[in-house]
C-alpha cells in the first residue's frame, strides 16, 4: 500500500509538473520567434494531454490495487442509505455480503468483521458512510521546504478518489479546451493584431504583435496551479496554489490588457478575491495557533512519531466533534484526547473553530463568486472564451467548492448552515439576473454562479457527495457550453449580443447540437419513469433531495428547499431562452447571420468529445460509477446527510416538474413567441431594470466601499501632506542647521587632525625612498647589514632574558 501511494503520487506529480515545465518553455516563445507558429500550443496540449493520461493510469492503478472497492462499497452504501431505518435487515444483508467477501478475499474474516463494525457505526451516525477496510486514501510529503519552530512548511500530497476524480476531470477538460483554443486564438498568430475593441485617438484601432504563445503559457501555468491545488496535502499549500490560480486568472482576464474593460475586470477579480483571501488567512492563522499543523491527514513528524492531521484532530476516528464546555477537544491519532507536552488536554474554543471554518469558507466565497462577492465573475468574461470555459466555469471557480468539500470535516454545523444560506442566496440572485442578460457569455457566467451556489448549498446541507457530484457534472456541461458560445462568437466575428443572433442552427449545426446537449444537461431534464436522464438531472436531483432531507429534519430552514426548487425552473428557463435566442427562430441581424460560419474541426472536435461526457458522465445517478468514486472519499463526519429513498423520489419529481415548466415557458416565449417578451419586459420594467443592473450590487459596493475608501484615502493624503510632511520638513531643516555646524567643526578640527596624521605618514613614506636607491651594490650590502642586525637583535633579546 505504501508503494501504491508512492506510485500514485509520482504519476500525479508528473501530471502536475508537466504543465509547469511547459510554461517555463512557452513563456519564452517571443524569444524563440514563435509568434507566428503554433509550437507553444502543441507543447501546452502535449503537456496537459500527457497529464490526463497519467491521471487515468493513476486511477486505474488505484482501482486495481484496491480491488475496485470503490464500486463494491457503493452497493453497501446504497443499502445503508436506502433502508437506514431498517437497521437489522440491512445488517443481515451486510452479513450476507461479508460471506461473499470472505470467499473473495484471503483475509476475509478480519476484513468482514471490520466492515461489519464500520457498517454498524454508520447506522449509529445516521447514515454515515461505511469506510472500506482497504486503504484508499494516501498522503505523504513530496518536499520539505522549511521548519519554523514547530511549523513544518512542506509540499504534501493527499490522494483519494476525489483527488483522482478531480485530476481526470481537470486534465480532460483542459485538454479539450487547449485544443479548442488552438482554433479560437489563431487570429493572434500575426505580427500585427488589430484589436477592434480598442480605439486610438486618430479613429483607428489599436495594433500590437500577436500573443498566441503567451496565451498558452498562461494556460499551462494555470493548469499547473489548479492541479497543485487539487493535489495539495495541507491547507497552506492549498493557499499558495489558490493564490497562483488567482494570479493566472488575473493574467487571463486581462489578456486583452489594452481594453480598459479587460484590465478593469482583471483588477476587480483580483481585488474581490483578496477580500475573500483575507478571511482565508485569518482561518489559517487560527488553525495554526490552535492545532499547530496545516496537514489534512496524519503525518510523521521529524522525530518519526505519528502526529494527527487537522481532520483527525477535530473529528477523531468516528466523525464526532467532542465538546468540553465551550471548547472542542482535539484528538490524537488513536482518537483519544490530544495532550501537549505538559500533559494537559489540547482544546480549541468552539467559536474559534467556527471562525476558522468561516474564514476558510470566506476564501471559497471569493474564489467561487458566491454572494456577496459574486460581482467579479461576470466581468471576468472579458477574457478570451477558452479562458472563461476553463478558468471561470469548470475548474478555478469550482476550486472554492472543492476546498469546501475537502475541508468539510473542519466545518461545524453553524458554518455549514452559513454555507447553505450563502449558496441559496447566490443561486437565486444569479439565476434571476441570467434571465434578463443578453450577452451570451454573461448568461453563462450567471448560470455558473448560480450552479456554484447549488454546489455550496449541497455541501452546506450536508450533501457532501451531492455537491461534489454537481461540481464534476457541471464542469463538463458548462465547459461544453462555454466552448459552444466561443464557437458562436468566433463564427459571428466576435458578436456576443444574443438579440443580434437567431437561427444559427442552420449555419452551425455541430455547435447548435452540442449546445443543446449542454442546455438539456444543465436544465436537468429527464424522461419521467425511466432512467434516461442527462447528467445535470442526477446531480441537481441529489442536491435538491439532500436539501429536502435536511428541511425534513429541520423544518425551520424550509427556504433551503423552496429556493433551489424554484431556481431549477428558472435555470431551465434561461438556458433554453439562450438556446432559442441564439440558434432557433429567424435571424435578427442579417449582417451577423451572413458572416456567420461553422467553426473549423479543431474547435468542433473538443465539443464532440465533451458532449457525451456532459450528457452521460453521471449515468446511473447516485448508484452510478461517478458518484461512487466521489462518495468513497466522503469524510467521516456526523454532519453528512443522506436523503432517504422516499424523499429522493419526491425531490426528484419536484425538480423535474420545475425544470419542465421552465423549459416550456422558454419554448413558448422564445421558441414559439406566443407572447412577445418585449411586452413582458415593458410591463415589469422596474423589475427588469433592477435585474439588468444586477440587483445593483456594483452600485451598492461603489457607495459602500469604493467611495468611502476614496474619501479616506484623500483624508490620509491630507494628513500626510500637511502634518507628517511638515513635521519631517521641520526635522530636516533642523538637521541641516546642525550639520552646518558639524561641518565647521569637522573641517576645522577633525580633518585637521586626520590631515596631520596623513601628512606625517605620507612624508615618512616619501622619505623611505632614500633606501630604494636602485644601486645594486647598496642592495647587496643591505643583505649583510640586515643579517648582522637580526643577529644582534636576537642576541640582545636572548641575553636580556638570561640576565
Amino acid at each position, binding site marked *: 500500500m505504501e508503494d501504491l501511494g508512492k506510485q500514485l503520487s509520482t504519476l500525479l506529480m508528473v501530471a502536475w509538473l508537466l504543465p509547469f515545465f511547459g510554461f517555463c518553455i512557452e513563456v519564452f516563445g517571443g524569444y524563440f520567434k514563435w509568434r507566428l507558429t503554433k509550437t507553444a500550443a502543441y507543447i501546452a496540449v502535449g503537456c496537459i494531454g500527457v497529464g490526463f493520461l497519467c491521471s487515468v493510469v493513476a486511477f486505474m492503478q488505484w482501482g486495481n490495487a484496491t480491488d475496485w472497492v470503490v464500486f463494491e462499497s457503493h452497493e453497501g452504501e446504497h443499502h445503508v442509505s436506502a433502508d437506514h431505518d431498517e437497521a437489522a435487515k440491512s445488517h443481515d444483508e451486510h452479513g450476507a455480503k461479508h460471506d461473499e467477501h470472505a470467499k473473495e478475499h484471503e483475509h476475509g474474516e478480519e476484513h468482514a468483521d471490520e466492515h461489519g463494525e464500520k457498517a454498524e457505526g454508520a447506522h449509529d451516525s445516521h447514515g454515515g458512510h461505511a469506510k472500506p477496510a482497504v486503504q484508499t486514501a494516501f498522503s505523504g510529503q513530496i518536499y520539505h521546504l522549511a521548519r519554523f519552530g514547530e511549523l513544518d512548511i512542506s509540499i504534501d500530497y493527499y490522494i483519494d478518489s476525489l483527488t483522482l476524480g478531480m485530476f481526470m476531470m481537470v486534465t480532460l477538460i483542459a485538454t479539450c479546451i487547449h485544443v479548442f483554443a488552438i482554433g479560437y486564438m489563431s487570429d493572434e498568430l500575426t505580427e500585427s493584431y488589430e484589436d477592434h475593441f480598442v480605439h486610438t485617438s486618430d479613429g483607428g484601432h489599436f495594433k500590437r504583435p500577436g500573443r498566441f504563445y503567451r496565451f498558452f503559457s498562461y494556460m499551462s501555468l494555470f493548469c499547473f496551479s489548479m492541479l497543485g491545488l487539487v493535489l495539495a496535502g495541507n491547507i497552506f499549500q492549498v493557499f499558495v496554489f489558490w493564490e497562483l490560480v488567482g494570479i493566472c486568472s488575473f493574467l487571463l482576464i486581462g489578456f486583452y490588457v489594452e481594453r480598459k474593460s479587460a484590465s478593469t475586470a482583471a483588477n476587480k477579480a483580483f481585488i474581490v478575491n483578496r477580500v475573500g483571501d483575507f478571511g482565508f488567512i485569518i482561518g489559517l492563522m487560527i488553525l495554526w495557533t490552535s492545532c499547530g499543523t496545516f496537514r489534512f491527514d496524519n503525518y510523521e513528524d521529524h522525530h518519526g512519531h505519528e502526529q494527527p492531521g487537522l481532520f483527525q484532530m477535530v473529528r477523531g476516528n468516528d466523525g464526532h466533534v467532542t465538546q468540553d464546555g465551550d471548547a472542542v477537544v482535539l484528538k490524537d491519532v488513536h482518537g483519544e484526547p490530544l495532550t501537549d507536552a505538559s500533559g494537559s488536554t489540547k482544546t480549541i474554543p468552539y467559536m474559534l473553530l467556527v471562525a476558522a471554518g468561516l474564514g476558510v469558507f470566506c476564501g471559497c466565497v471569493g474564489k467561487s463568486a458566491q454572494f456577496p462577492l459574486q460581482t467579479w465573475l461576470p466581468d471576468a468574461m472579458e477574457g478570451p472564451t477558452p479562458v472563461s470555459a476553463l478558468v471561470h466555469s469548470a475548474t478555478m471557480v469550482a476550486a472554492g467548492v472543492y476546498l469546501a468539500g475537502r475541508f468539510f470535516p473542519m466545518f461545524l454545523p453553524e458554518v455549514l448552515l452559513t454555507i447553505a444560506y450563502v449558496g441559496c442566496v447566490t443561486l437565486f440572485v444569479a439565476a434571476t439576473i441570467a434571465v434578463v442578460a443578453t450577452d451570451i457569455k454573461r448568461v453563462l457566467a450567471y448560470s455558473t454562479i448560480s450552479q456554484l451556489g447549488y454546489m455550496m448549498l449541497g455541501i452546506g446541507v450536508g450533501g457532501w457527495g451531492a455537491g461534489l457530484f454537481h461540481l464534476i457534472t457541471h464542469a463538463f456541461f458548462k465547459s461544453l457550453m462555454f466552448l459552444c458560445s466561443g464557437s458562436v462568437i468566433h463564427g459571428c466575428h466576435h458578436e456576443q449580443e444574443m438579440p443580434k443572433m437567431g437561427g444559427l442552427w442552420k449555419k452551425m449545426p455541430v455547435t447548435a447540437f452540442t449546445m443543446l446537449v449542454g442546455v438539456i444537461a444543465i436544465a436537468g431534464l429527464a424522461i419521467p419513469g425511466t432512467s434516461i436522464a442527462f447528467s445535470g438531472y442526477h446531480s441537481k436531483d441529489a442536491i435538491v433531495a439532500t436539501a429536502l432531507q435536511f428541511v425534513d429534519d429541520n423544518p425551520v430552514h424550509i427556504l433551503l428547499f423552496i429556493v433551489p426548487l424554484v431556481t431549477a425552473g428558472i435555470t431551465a428557463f434561461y438556458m433554453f431562452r439562450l438556446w432559442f435566442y441564439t440558434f432557433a427562430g429567424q435571424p435578427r441581424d442579417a449582417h451577423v447571420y451572413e458572416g456567420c460560419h461553422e467553426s473549423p474541426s479543431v474547435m468542433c472536435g473538443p465539443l464532440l468529445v465533451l458532449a457525451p461526457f456532459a450528457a452521460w458522465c453521471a449515468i446511473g445517478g447516485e448508484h452510478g460509477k461517478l458518484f461512487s468514486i466521489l462518495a468513497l472519499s466522503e469524510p467521516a463526519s456526523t454532519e453528512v446527510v443522506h436523503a432517504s429513498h422516499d424523499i429522493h423520489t419526491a425531490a426528484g419529481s419536484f425538480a423535474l416538474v420545475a425544470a419542465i415548466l421552465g423549459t416550456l415557458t422558454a419554448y413558448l416565449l422564445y421558441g414559439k413567441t406566443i407572447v412577445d417578451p418585449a411586452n413582458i419586459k415593458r410591463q415589469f420594467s422596474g423589475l427588469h431594470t433592477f435585474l439588468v443592473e444586477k440587483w445593483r450590487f456594483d452600485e451598492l459596493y461603489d457607495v459602500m466601499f469604493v467611495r468611502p475608501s476614496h474619501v479616506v484615502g484623500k483624508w490620509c493624503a491630507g494628513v500626510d501632506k500637511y502634518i507628517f510632511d511638515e513635521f519631517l520638513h521641520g526635522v530636516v531643516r533642523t538637521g541641516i542647521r546642525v550639520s552646518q555646524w558639524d561641518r565647521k567643526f569637522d573641517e576645522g578640527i577633525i580633518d585637521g587632525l586626520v590631515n596631520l596624521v*596623513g601628512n606625517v*605618514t*605620507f612624508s*615618512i*613614506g*616619501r622619505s*623611505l*625612498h632614500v*633606501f*630604494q636607491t*636602485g644601486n*645594486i651594490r647598496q*642592495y*647587496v650590502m*643591505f*643583505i649583510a*647589514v*640586515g*643579517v648582522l*642586525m*637580526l*643577529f644582534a*637583535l*636576537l*642576541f640582545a*633579546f*636572548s*641575553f636580556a*632574558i*638570561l640576565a
Partner: protein
Amino acid sequence: MNNGFGSLLDRLITETAGSYEGESAWSLEYAAGMFGQFMESSLGHFSPELALCATIVCLLLVRLFGCDKCCQPYWVALFGSLVSFGLAYYQFTDLQQTSQSEEFFTGLLIYDPFTVFFRLFLLLFLILITALTVLSGIPDDEDAPDFYCLLLGSTIGMMLMASANHMLVIFLGVEMTSVPSYVMVGFLKGRRQSSEAALKYVVYGAGAAGVMLYGTSLVAGVLGTASLPEMASRMALLVGEAGTMSDPIVRTVILGIMLVMVGLAFKLSLVPFHFWCPDAFEGASAEVAGFLSVASKAGAFALLVRFCLAFAGNPEGTGTLKEIYLYLGLGLGVIAAASATFGNLAAYSQTNVKRLLAYSTIAHAGYMLMAVSAMMVILNAPAGSLHDPLVDANRCLEGLLYYLFVYLFMNLGAFAVVALIRNQIYSEEVSDYAGLGYQAPVLCVCMGICMFSLVGIPPMGGFFAKLVIFASVFKAGQVHWLMYLILIIGGLNTVFSLVYYVRVLKTMFVDPRHADARRADVPFNSVPGLYAVMVTVPVLVLGIAVKGLSETANQVASVLFR
C-alpha cells in the same frame, strides 16, 4: 606483460611500491588498479611534478619540430597544467580520506595533505596565470615555448619547496624557483628597465642564496643531518633541554637557522630583504609580477612553516631552548610588523601601479608572516600559559592558508586588471587610469573589489583572512605582550593601506578622463571582462561562504601537528 612500455612501467612501480597482485591482462580494471598502485609509489606521489616535467619536454619538442604553428604552446602548457591539477586533485581527495603523511624518495620529500594542498594551490594559480597570458598575449609567438617552460619550471620548484623534507631540497627548491623567475623578469627583452630589473634580481638572489647556503651548511654541519624531521631530536641530543645562547653549538645553530630564514625572507620580500621587489616588479610584465607575488610567496611560506616546525614543532618540550625559539618567533613578528609598515608607507608615493602593488605585496607578506610568528610563539609558550597550544597553532596555520587562498584571487585580480588595461592604454601609471571607470567598468569594478579585499573590508575575502590571522596574533599576545604591539601595528597598517588603494580607485572613478587619452573598451561580455569577473567572484564568495575553505584549511594544517 605484452609490451615493452608495460614492463618498464611495471618494473618502475614494483620497485618503488611493491608488486601489484591483480589481473595481468590489460583491462580497464587492471589499468585502474595499476593507476591506484602507481599513485601509491614514490613516482606516483611525485606525479603532478612529473606531468609538468613532461609538459616542458613537450613544449621544447613542439618548437623543435616546428609544430608551434598548428599547436599553440599555451594549449600544451594549459593541458599539462590541467593534467597535473587533475592528478593533484586525485591525491587530495585520496588523502582527505586517509590523511596519511609519508616520506618518499628516501626521505627527501614528504607527501601529506599540506603538500598536496599547496600543489593544488600552485597549479590552480598556474592555470589561471596561463589563461591570463593567453588573453594578454605577453609572450609573443616566437618566445612562447620558452616562457611557458620557465613558468612551469618555476612552478615545479615551488612545488618542491612545498614538499621539502630536507635542507638540500629546500635549497634546490628555492633555486629552482628563482632561476626561471630571473629570466621571466627580464623577458621583455626590448625594455632596458626590464633587463636592469632582471640583473638586480639575479645579483640580489645570488647574494641571498649564498647566505642561505651558508646557513644550511652551518645547521647541517653542526647537527650532522640535513633531514628536517631529525633536526629537533639531534638538537636535543647535542645540547639537552637546558641549552642557552652561551653555548657555542646553540649559537651556531641559531645563526644557521637565521641565515636560512634570510634566504626565505628574500623570497618573501620581507624587510630588510625586499629591495629587489619593487624594481623587479616594475621591470617585469604585470603577469610575471602577479605570478611572483603570489606563487613564489606561497611556496616560500610552505617552506618556512616546515622549517620552523622542524625545530620548534613540539609544544611538550621544556627548558631554555624553547625560550630561544619563542624569541625567534617574536623576531619574526617584528620583521612582519616592519614589513607591513614599510610596505604600506612606501606605497603611498608610488606613481606606477605595478610598483605600488609591489609594495603592497611586501605589506601582505608581513601580514602573513604574523601568522607564522604567532604559531612559533604559541608553540613555544611556557607550559600552562595556554589551554591547548596545538589547536591555537592550528588556527594560525588555518589563517595563513586562508589568507594565501584569498590572496591568490585578489592579487591575481589586481595584476590581471593592470595587464588587461595595459593592453588597452599602453600605460601602467596611476595618473593614466583617470576616468577609466566609465570606459571599462567591469575591469575597474573588479579592481575595486580586489583592492577593498586587499585592504580587508567586509564582505570581501580579505577581511575574513585578516580576521583569522589577527585573532591568532591576539592569542599569541597572551603568551608575550610584544604580540599585542604587533597586532596594533597590523591593525594600524590596515588603515594606512586604505589610502593608497583608494587613491587608485579615486583616480579611476572620480577623476575625469583626459580628452586625448587612449580609450579602453572592455565590455562585460568580452573574454577579458569575463576573466576579470571570474577571478574576482571568488574574492566575494570567500568573504561570504567561509566555512568550506576554512574547514579544509584547518584539516590540512592539522596534519603538521601530529
